């Protein structure tokens, strides 16, 4: 399950995924008796047709960029982090708790403070899974899934026990100084929930791109992910590197959660399910084939789909369930882009060598071994 970053996956594959997703969505709408064309027109005008819509799209993409980067960093080291949602949730909780604990602080202190606490909380949560994997060989897929549930129920318990107002299911709002949404931005985007967090997300995109490409740590992360044996030979420590990548991954997810806490919701609610920014972040990272810059665009696309999707059911009689199916089928093809990649590979080398020149088993394409 490694992300491969070649030119073909750079653009051809994501676009094919999106097209196939829209196609399947259209077929489902036709079968259910709804008009796909008008619905898709509604979807795109709903996402891009007004300043408010654009603000909502950007707001929705903001945490996705962070969780997707989190997934990508861990994945480069060969770690399949499914715990994005849990790590984001503890980050969300930490940011709100910090902001509410120090209501008197000015913005210049309370916002960085809340962000740092959120990043640390997320890093701690992913670090647990990283530690178990690096030092005890525990499968990270299982540990991160389980840590997701622990995060969900523990967070809910903490919110109910210590943070709710009266017997409500949500905490009190964070102080004004900690809010990333401002009257100025609301004015600019016709009262959307757009907030300053997007600056952090975009900075994170470029920071992670730089980290992976230009730093020795990034080099180690990529080398360990591609060949643990060769990196050990080169004197790297796979354990330490896996830990480092997991801590970075969790910190990014924690920041993603803080975007919900300080920006979107401005408080924390008792969640009935894990926040969707976790699994959506994974899809974004897969669609972008791990490229940080690609994640920037893939997150915007996801924002467009989810905000535009809302408008289908508002503007037409199409029930919201249909909208969900359309969005889900696009995400499905994005997630299943391995299949599309496989088709692309087949198209490129259609004929097999004839039987007269058998290939020795030892000389089979070693490039594919690591994929």
């Amino acid at each position: 399950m490694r992300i491969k970053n070649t030119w073909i996956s750079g653009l051809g594959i994501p676009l094919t995924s999106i097209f196939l997703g829209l196609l399947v969505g259209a077929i489902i709408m036709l079968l259910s008796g709804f008009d796909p064309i008008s619905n898709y027109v509604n979807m795109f005008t709903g996402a891009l047709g007004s300043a408010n819509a654009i603000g909502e799209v950007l707001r929705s993409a903001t945490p996705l960029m962070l969780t997707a980067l989190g997934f990508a960093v861990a994945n480069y080291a060969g770690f399949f982090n499914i715990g994005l949602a849990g790590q984001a949730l503890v980050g969300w909780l930490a940011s709100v708790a910090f902001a509410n604990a120090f209501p008197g602080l000015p913005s210049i202190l309370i916002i960085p403070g809340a962000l740092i606490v959120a990043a640390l909380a997320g890093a701690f949560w992913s670090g647990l899974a990283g530690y178990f994997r690096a030092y005890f060989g525990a499968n990270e897929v299982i540990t991160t899934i389980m840590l997701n549930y622990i995060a969900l129920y523990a967070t809910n318990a903490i919110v109910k026990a210590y943070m709710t107002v009266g017997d409500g299911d949500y905490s009190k709002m964070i102080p004004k100084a900690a809010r990333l949404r401002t009257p100025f931005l609301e004015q600019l985007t016709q009262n959307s929930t757009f907030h300053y967090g997007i600056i952090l997300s975009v900075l994170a995109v470029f920071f992670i791109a730089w980290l992976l490409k230009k730093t020795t740590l990034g080099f180690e992360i990529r080398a360990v992910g591609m060949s643990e044996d060769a990196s050990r030979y080169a004197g790297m420590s796979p354990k330490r590197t896996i830990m480092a990548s997991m801590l970075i991954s969790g910190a990014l997810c924690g920041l993603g959660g803080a975007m919900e806490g300080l920006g979107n919701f401005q408080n924390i609610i008792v969640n009935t399910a894990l926040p969707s920014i976790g699994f959506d972040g994974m899809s974004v990272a897969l669609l972008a084939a791990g490229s940080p810059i690609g994640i920037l665009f893939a997150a915007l696309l996801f924002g467009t789909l989810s905000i535009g999707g809302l408008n289908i059911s508002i503007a037409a009689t199409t029930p919201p369930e249909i909208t969900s199916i359309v969005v889900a089928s696009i995400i499905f093809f994005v997630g299943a882009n391995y299949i599309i990649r496989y088709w692309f590979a087949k198209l490129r080398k259609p004929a097999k060598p004839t039987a007269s020149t058998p290939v020795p088993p030892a000389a089979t394409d070693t490039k594919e071994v690591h994929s």
Partner: protein
Amino acid sequence: MAEPAIKVTGLTKRFGDFVANDHLDLTINFGEVHALLGENGAGKTTMMNMLSGILIPTSGTIEVRGKAAHLQSAKDATALGIGMVHQHFMLVENFSVIDNIILGAEPTKGGKIDRTKAKKDIMALSEKYRLRIEPDAKIEDISVGMQQRVEILKVLYRQADILIFDEPTAVLTPQEIDELLDIMRQLASEGKAVVLISHKLAELRQVADVITIIRRGKKIDTVPASTSTAELADKMVGRHVNFARERVPMPEGAPVLEVKDLVVEDKDKVAHVRDLSLMLRGGEILGLAGIDGNGQSEFVKAITGLLPVTAGQILIGGKDLTHATPREVTEASVGHIPEDRQRFGLVMPMDLVENMSLQTYYKPPLSHHGVMDTKVMVQTTEQLLDDYDVRHANLQQKAGDLSGGNQQKLIIARELSRDPQLVIAMNPTRGLDVGAIEFIHAQLLKARAAGHAVLLISFELDEVRQLSDRIAVIHNGHIVGESATSDLTEQQIGLMMTGETLEHAKEATHEN
């Protein structure tokens, strides 16, 4: 015996340009143990894989019981009564012994697996051939020797009467080996045909009726098992070769590598290196000769920090590096050309610049405070690719896209350009063409001429003899003998590789 079990005529197998088997003729009779003797890569296993349907011959014919056979799969071979006991066991670890034996040939009763019948049949076989097993134990819980008996029963259960054993004793204890050889004799006396692939002369002479020697894919001879060990070694290793590698005389240097009583055990407490001691000086090449799997890779991994040392001591340049990490070893001025270049030596999906920087990326001039200087990396790489004549298309090329020879040249450029006091090269020319071999040999000799110590571990006896000042022979994780290259004949080395001591080897070769 009227009909031969297997008759092979003109059997040829090519892998691209490489001829693994070149017009082999061979007759295997029922009631006989027929041994195939040859060095690594001589083509023994290739041939047997064709007989058991795993590989399809390029040309030539195989007759089984007098009838032409066209084996397309292992299933075809099983149907003809041919069964192979593989070198690496093909067992399902967490299945029971019984389940492993019946896997793919399960007896059924009303759609259900009839384990009662299976167990009865298997225990009957087990008793008949004295193949002791614990039928209900899981594979992962039984000894290697018993796992092998399970493999044999698997073959017998499928009613094979032509049994092929591929290097069966490699993983066994001496006692288990004796038991196995007895079983083979018994199988032959029952009228079955037994083929034994090995390069351990003593065993072959003990159990076989006839021995066929294969070298570089060609059949050299078929001789009776009474042939002397020396003669067999001679035929196996081959004719006199030209050692035209020039070694300039060097003064005796200071000790660079000292290994004292080294023991390396794996997780299961099996010792792969036992009380191994070696000393290597600057300005010399020490060749470590031996057959694959006698502890060479574990030895190299232990010195380079890739495997933990159980006991003993390793000094490099006088510094104790017994429990050092790979990086500490590298920093002690060691260049390591690893055994498996694609698995250890290179990160195959990374580009040439990154691979060239693999050992030095973390320090100046390639990086400062954790940030890499791409410009310097590119410059260094360009220079080294040029100096060491690594043929490449561009710097963004993946290491995996280079040819084998150029991959190895890249590694050699990276390791030798650091001017290491100790060069550890394991099978540095394995699978390479003549041109690349020349170049790599020249580089190793250059390191020697610069006063550095070179430890050359190779399965190729010719290579060891051509390059080394001294030769140590490793067998079963232990150095069985060590001498100046000029004092040893190929025969003697060949004998020592099969476990004979230096004295015995010398005696045996003086007989004739």
